[in-house]
């Protein structure tokens, strides 16, 4: 009953979307604010309506209403309450509904904002229209092609249970994060379209949607990180990233949204590259749509893609229509989007931003081509050719390294024009630091040239980024008579985007260190022959002693679990370091085996053990062991990136008097420095 009410509510949400999409532009054309406001309210209403829909489905999940097909597909009597709640996005149909919920939340948030105060009222009707159309598309999809509310004629006694792979906290939070990332980026897209329709040539759409873009980007980043963490903890392939289509899809979007964040600054500062920003925004949107179409339709197989379904053709058709409409709109506005300024020199902030932008795009394209190559090769040559991680490592890897290098250069260049001498002067200290680090590493035994160079690159960029803070803090200490901590805080407060951005850069460098460490110094092996009981084997600095295998109770009673016990000791002095308990779950219902690794070791040297197999009731067993040096820096870097986002995003109340005289920066009174 309540579930059917939810179904009805989602139908109303679709109607509200259609209404908003028609009435808002009509109001704009007739100059009738009542119609515009009516459309705005209708768009606002979609959120409570979709929420009721989700509550209805949650009700069915919580009450074990197996008459609803979706509930029987993703839960069972044994599924604990927590996973029955998260099962809402555990499979295709429900996750589209959940996607609609998050999108409608963003729509509602955009609708309730104070448009009069923001001064972008003229954009409102078309922002409403764009968002209502996109949300309406997904609601249509939910209702007509992937309905989660459908009932079966013969309700089963028990459901099939949640996909075992999805029972991990990372997997629980990761999809909502990604959805929020995608739908967050819908807001700047809507502003972009509205700006084009109203023939505006200024950067209003960028400024109005700047914070939304940041939010979308941050969610996307967090979603990617959590996805990596999930793969690391659950999939048992020893790494954090497998270049799987469902990982690549958000990455492709991230690799377009990130340059957009940078190039938007060029337009805001200098009124240039307006067309380019529109292009990047549309590309961001297209990549999101395209990726969703491919993953959802089952065209691309992946570790956890949804089952093949018939929404693919519909999706593709809709996408072509939408993109064609966008392209038409853009082409008819080219004259409006002329650059206001002349590029003074390629050796400038805007010049290097442009290079960074195209490098990001070519990286994105690389990931894209590798991801869809199986489909391309099947369409052209008739055979489906799989593209594994080696391709991505060898092609996207160098481009990403180049991006890290640019990150160490861009902050040095000024807007407009830079002087070569000044820039090279600023490079001395970081370059010296990088050299010292490389020598230290070489003496320490790192003699492979490529990782050594890459670590040097990271050291340079790290030092350069830190130097940016040092320079800023020094300037404030000299000019503003501030002590160092005050200067640092004020610096970040007054230039949030800039110094928050540098914090994100720092996070990226830390992450790069982790990637290089794991990629070049990671070891992995499998025990040969299988180890006997109480026998030992050594990998790297660690000795493992096999102590037996035993069945243990499975967490939710729907699997069979075998757990192995290993003693870990130091290979050099025999000191006992700990124990490892890797295990395997077998799910008879889903015919699925999960290998759950044991993760131990130190912060800089992770030990990752997988139970690969056993014989004779555990008389012998074999293990796959990964030593992952520096891998934890990836997660640390990720946290730093998110912190950087908060620095950018946080609204700081103005306290300090605005324009302090710049001429007062020289006379540094005695006692001012080194407080």
């Amino acid at each position, binding site marked *: 009953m309540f579930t059917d009410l939810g179904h009805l509510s989602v139908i109303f949400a679709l109607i509200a979307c259609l209404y908003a999409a028609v009435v808002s532009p009509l109001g704009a054309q007739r100059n009738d604010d009542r119609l515009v406001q009516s459309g705005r309210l209708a768009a606002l209403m979609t959120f409570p309506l979709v929420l009721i829909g989700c509550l209805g489905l949650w009700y069915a999940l919580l009450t074990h209403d197996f008459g609803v097909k979706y509930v029987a597909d993703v839960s069972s009597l044994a599924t604990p309450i927590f996973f029955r709640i998260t099962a809402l996005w555990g499979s295709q149909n429900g996750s589209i509904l959940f996607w609609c919920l998050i999108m409608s939340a963003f729509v509602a948030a955009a609708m309730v904002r104070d448009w009069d105060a923001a001064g972008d009222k003229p954009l409102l009707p078309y922002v409403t229209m764009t968002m209502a159309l996109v949300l309406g598309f997904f609601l249509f999809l939910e209702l007509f092609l992937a309905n989660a509310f459908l009932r079966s004629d013969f309700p089963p006694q028990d459901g099939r249970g949640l996909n075992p792979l999805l029972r991990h906290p990372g997997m629980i939070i990761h999809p909502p994060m990604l959805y929020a990332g995608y739908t967050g980026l819908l807001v700047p897209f809507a502003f972009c379209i509205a700006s084009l329709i109203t023939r505006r040539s200024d950067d209003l759409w960028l400024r109005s949607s700047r914070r939304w873009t940041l939010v979308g980007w941050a969610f996307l980043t967090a979603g990617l990180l959590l996805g990596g963490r999930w793969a690391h903890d659950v999939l048992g392939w020893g790494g954090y990233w497998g270049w799987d289509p469902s990982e690549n899809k958000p990455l492709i979007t991230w690799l377009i949204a990130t340059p957009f964040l940078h190039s938007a600054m060029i337009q805001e500062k200098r009124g240039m590259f307006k067309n380019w920003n529109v292009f990047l925004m549309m590309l961001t949107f297209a990549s999101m749509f395209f990726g969703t179409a491919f993953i959802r339709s089952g065209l691309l197989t992946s570790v956890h893609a949804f089952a093949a379904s018939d929404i693919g053709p519909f999706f593709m058709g809709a996408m072509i229509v939408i993109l064609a409409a966008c392209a038409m709109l853009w082409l008819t506005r080219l004259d409006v989007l002329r650059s206001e300024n002349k590029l003074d020199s390629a050796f400038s902030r805007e010049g290097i931003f442009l290079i960074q932008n195209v490098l990001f795009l070519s990286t994105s394209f690389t990931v894209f081509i590798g991801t869809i190559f199986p489909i391309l090769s099947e369409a052209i040559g008739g*055979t489906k050719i799989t593209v594994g991680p080696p391709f991505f490592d060898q092609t996207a890897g160098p481009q990403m390294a180049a991006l890290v290098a640019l990150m160490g250069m861009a902050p040095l260049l000024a807007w407009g024009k830079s002087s070569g001498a000044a820039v090279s002067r600023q490079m001395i200290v970081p370059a010296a630091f990088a050299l010292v680090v490389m020598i230290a590493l070489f003496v320490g035994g790192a003699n492979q040239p490529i990782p050594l160079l890459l670590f040097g690159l990271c050291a340079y960029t790290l030092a350069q980024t830190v130097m940016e803070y040092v320079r800023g803090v020094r300037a404030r200490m000299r000019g503003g008579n501030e002590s160092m901590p005050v200067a640092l805080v004020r610096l970040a407060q007054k230039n949030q985007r800039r110094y928050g951005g540098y914090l994100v850069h720092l996070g990226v460098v830390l992450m790069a260190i982790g990637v290089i460490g794991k990629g070049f110094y990671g070891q992995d092996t499998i025990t040969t022959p*299988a180890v006997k009981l109480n026998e030992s084997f050594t990998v790297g600095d660690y000795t493992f002693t096999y102590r037996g295998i035993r069945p243990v109770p499975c967490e939710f009673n729907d699997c069979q679990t075998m757990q192995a016990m290993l003693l870990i000791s130091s290979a050099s002095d025999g000191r006992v370091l700990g124990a490892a308990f890797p295990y395997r779950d077998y799910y008879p219902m889903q015919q699925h085996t999960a290998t759950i690794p044991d993760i131990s070791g130190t912060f800089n040297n992770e030990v990752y053990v997988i139970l690969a197999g056993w014989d004779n009731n555990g008389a012998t067993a074999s293990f796959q062991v990964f030593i992952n040096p520096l891998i934890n820096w990836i997660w640390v870097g990720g946290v730093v990136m998110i912190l950087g986002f908060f620095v950018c995003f946080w609204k700081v109340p103005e306290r300090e008097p605005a324009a302090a005289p710049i001429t007062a920066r020289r006379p540094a009174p005695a006692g001012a420095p080194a407080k």
Partner: protein
Amino acid sequence: MTFAKTLRAFICALLGVLLLGRSTANVVYAQVPAPDEETYRIAKQLNCPTCAGRNLADCPTETCAQWKAEIKAQLDQGKSAQEVLDYFQARFGPTVLQEPPKSGTTAPLWAAPIGAAIVFLIGAGLVMWRTSQRNAPAAPSTPQSEGEDPFVAALEREVRQSE
């Protein structure tokens, strides 16, 4: 209502029996012989037909176990690693390799990223050249740093633009 309760109790009881009998049943069926080191190295370079998106070495399915056994058998016959890989490629086509060959039908795949990077960079160069040639309106081309920290703006001028 009572029927549902009875049924639930029955299912619980059934589950209980299954669980009790599990420890022995489990061990018998779930034995998984593991591949040796060289098989593992070769399996790492192959795709598994049943585990989408994972290499053969990491995939725990039955089909993959057969493939691994095949690799081991060929190694035991004295074939080299490359010969085993060649055998799989001849039998299943290049799709079986984790790393598609850089020649033949998959050459365009490898060329595409390099081509894209080059074309994009040239494009960026052209855009920069054109933008710098354009007759811009008489707007001042000094960077606008409104809303920025005056100290940092001064720093910017001092550090980056002066010789």
